[in-house]
């Protein structure tokens, strides 16, 4: 489905994400990588309290915005593709030690070469995948 380019809300939302990452580093010395925080929580690593609070805060704040703005969730996406996507995202972010937030925002903000490379690889993979699914095979999403 086509979407509108929303530069102002993108910049404001992005700034809030950057503020969140800076706050976590300043207050606890931690990196705001969602996959890492989620994995440590599920694995039962020590120091789980702040991680659980982070994840709960994330879901509640997003939910408050959805309720206020009336943004709908997506429905009807093909189930097998959803499961395949979820498995790959979970597997890949654990193997590669980070996702869009950990490598993409915190890693780049730390000027990490490792994270820059990770970002280039997952962006290239994402662009290629959408190209193949929408324009070569067609009709998936």
């Amino acid at each position, binding site marked *: 489905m086509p979407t509108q380019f929303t530069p102002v809300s993108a910049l404001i939302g992005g700034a809030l994400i950057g503020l969140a990452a800076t706050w976590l*580093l300043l207050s606890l010395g931690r990196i705001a990588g969602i996959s890492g925080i989620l994995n440590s929580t599920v694995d039962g690593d020590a120091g789980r309290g702040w991680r659980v609070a982070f994840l709960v805060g994330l879901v509640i704040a997003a939910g408050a915005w959805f309720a206020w703005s009336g943004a709908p969730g997506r429905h009807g996406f093909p189930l097998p593709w959803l499961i395949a996507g*979820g*498995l790959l995202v979970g*597997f890949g972010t654990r193997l590669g030690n980070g*996702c869009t937030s950990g490598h993409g925002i915190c890693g780049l903000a730390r000027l990490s070469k490792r994270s820059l490379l990770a970002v280039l690889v997952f962006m290239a993979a994402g662009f290629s*995948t959408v190209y193949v699914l929408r324009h070569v095979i067609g009709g998936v999403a």
Partner: protein
Amino acid sequence: MRPIVHGAIAGALFGLGLAVSGMTDPDKVLNFLDLAGHWDPSLALVMGGALAVALPGFAWVRRRGRTLSGDPMPTPPSTTIDRRLLLGSALFGIGWGIAGYCPGPALANLAHGTQEAVVFVVALLAGSQLARLVART
């Protein structure tokens, strides 16, 4: 303040930022990745906005050298570039391009309570545990 308060503040700012930016809409993410279709560049500006704050923010915290409670900064994460990083990032990118969710927006979508958000997050957790078993990470 206690760590859980800091964690909750950071998480709430993060979740609000994701929702405000529209990145919780997987169609916006897929349209960013679709250069040959109805391209929506919003995601690039989300990263730009985040880095505009986090680049100087991280530099300032690093110069400060201590957390708010006065503890020294923990050592930064690994800097090794290896096959695991490249393969993991490639698989993540493929999954991201299939469904349009990366981990943060997927979790935020649990607030919608949609079946697809729940299915995606369960699959993500399963994939992560699988990687833990296979690659012993």
